[in-house]
């Protein structure tokens, strides 16, 4: 098998992993086993995988409250992620972070973020750090259509542009900012048009086409590495689940959701392509889904069997050398 085919199959597997992870998380949240609240990225797998499949562990990613997919696509450990969702001491953050605050600095994930647009100023700093250290790393920030209306986005895109930082701004336009339709909160339909204001390329992509996303990401990475500065990518996609699990979703018609799921599911689309190109068969696909399922079962088992932190561990990890 060629390395390109291997990459495509690996991308497919990662998309399936995200889908199954999110489905599992949703089920266990509904069953009351995951505390707090969680935001799922079902239907947006192509954006996570298309971009992160182009990155190396040394490259940086900052993500959002809806970040599970980006974390998985960047290589996060499923056991430690699941344990963190369950609030267990074996989780990535020893139970201090939860779904919205997972990071793995050893593979360049500088953090999910509970503040909408919170990752953009940080990624600009990571980009500046790369430039000062003169490495060939790149720094990617994911944010949503809702975040795109916040002030820090303007400051970060402007600063990254004047300094020609190796940063990629990936806006996932999933049509809804919490309850608010994208068309209400911004008079642009194509958010990538905003890139022009910062003199950087803005690439609008069918965000449910993983190959198209990957192509845009490769182009942006190439620009970043050659010192030409930042790129904005708009992945047009759709948030299949509510803003949070349990969201009554009175702001949209369920028929709209079903249409997207039936006609534009990024995994089904990619699967059709792979089958057509004889990279994947129905049988092989089932094997992948089953393998991922058992991997997740292990992660779940690990999380459920792990202890909670001791209450007084709440006082640890605030300062270095405290």
């Amino acid at each position, binding site marked *: 098998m060629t390395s390109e085919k291997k990459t495509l199959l690996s991308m497919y597997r990662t998309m399936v992993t995200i889908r199954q992870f999110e489905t599992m998380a949703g089920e266990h949240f509904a069953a009351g086993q995951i505390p707090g609240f969680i935001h799922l990225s079902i239907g947006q797998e192509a954006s996570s995988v298309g971009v992160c499949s182009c990155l190396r562990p040394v490259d940086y990613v900052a993500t959002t409250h809806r970040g599970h997919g980006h974390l998985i696509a960047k290589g996060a450990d499923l056991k430690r992620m699941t344990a963190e969702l369950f609030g267990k001491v074996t989780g990535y953050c020893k139970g*201090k972070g939860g779904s919205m*605050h997972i990071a793995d*600095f050893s593979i360049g994930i500088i*953090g999910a973020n509970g503040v909408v647009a919170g990752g953009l*100023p*940080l990624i600009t700093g990571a980009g500046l750090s790369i430039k000062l250290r003169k490495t060939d790393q790149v720094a990617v920030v994911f944010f949503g259509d809702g975040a795109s209306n916040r002030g820090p986005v303007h400051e970060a895109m402007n600063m990254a542009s004047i300094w020609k930082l190796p940063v990629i701004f990936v806006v996932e336009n999933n049509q809804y900012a919490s309850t608010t339709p994208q068309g209400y909160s911004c008079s642009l339909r194509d958010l990538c048009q905003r890139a022009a204001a910062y003199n950087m390329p803005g690439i609008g992509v069918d965000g449910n086409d993983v190959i198209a996303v990957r192509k845009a990401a490769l182009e942006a990475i190439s620009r970043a590495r050659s010192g030409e500065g930042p790129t904005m990518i708009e992945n047009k996609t759709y948030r299949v689940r509510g803003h949070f699990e349990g969201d009554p979703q009175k702001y949209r018609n369920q028929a709209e959701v079903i249409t997207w799921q039936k006609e534009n599911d990024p995994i089904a689309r990619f699967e059709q392509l792979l089958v057509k190109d004889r990279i994947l068969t129905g049988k092989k696909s089932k094997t992948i889904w089953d393998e991922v399922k058992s991997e997740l079962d292990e992660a779940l088992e690990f999380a459920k069997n792990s202890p909670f932190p001791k209450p007084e561990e709440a006082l640890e990890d605030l300062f270095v050398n405290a």
Partner: protein
Amino acid sequence: MSDRMMSASAALAEALLEEMERDETIFIVGEDLTAHAGIFGQFKGIPEKYPSRIIDTPISETCIAGCGVGAALTGMRPIVDFHFSDFVTCGMDELCNQAAKIRYMFGGQVKLPLVVWCPDGAGLRAAAQHSQSLEAWFVHTPGLKVVVPSEAADVKGLIKASIRDDNPVMFFQHKRLFRREGLVPDNPEFIIPLGKAAVKREGKDVSLLTYGSGFFICMDAASQLAEQGIEAEVIDLRTLKPLDMNTIAISIKKTNRAVVVHEACLTGGFGAELVARIQAELFDDLDAPVLRVAAKDVPIPFSPVLEDFVIPKPADVIQSVKTVCYR
């Protein structure tokens, strides 16, 4: 090695030059840094010596602060210049929601060696949005250290400790004190550890607990009180978080009386926290209620007559000391 007279501004520049020489991951980022070596000349010599490590930004306080956080997370030791401390309001999310919480939220995975340098304080007739003392906001945010130096030597020793610290440090340096000279050791390893107060004048009758510009008010008041037969001990706290309660306790056990003095406004100020701790930990050692001397609870007004009325003066300290000494 000897001590030299130098301004607080020069002490800061000297410390930064020494630290930047020692560690190439240190850089300074903020607005208007290079044209005049900082708007107060506080970075004199740095633009010439390290042109690529003192970086002018657009007017974008949110992203300047975020830049510091992101760079600190990825191997650098940034110093963020906030231009005027008042503008921290434009970077509060990056300081209080990101810098303060990142290490903790992520279970101690990462260090965040960031210094946020904030020129603060009143007295320059700069009015309400360029004159504040906001240290209490950050003391109230777990995850940040808070340093407020007074004399030039403290500036040098504390900025070095702050730069070498692996945690985010809010460093407030009073604008009116930049030109004030003091003796500064020329030893490049002169470092004042964070969390160590200094007894700068000894006395047996009352403890004056202060920091920043309040220190000079207290020293002035202590001289006048001595002429009236009251020996005030002046403790310069220097670091508000971590706080050196030990030095405070030793002093109060001796004097049995205390007055807390700061330039920030009274209500909800650092004095409230300090007085609460004193009454909880040293109640039996007190012969009088602990009083606070602070600015009045209004924004800092412009007209000199108004501003001088609002901010604390030595006479206010003297009056409070007499009250707690029942004189």
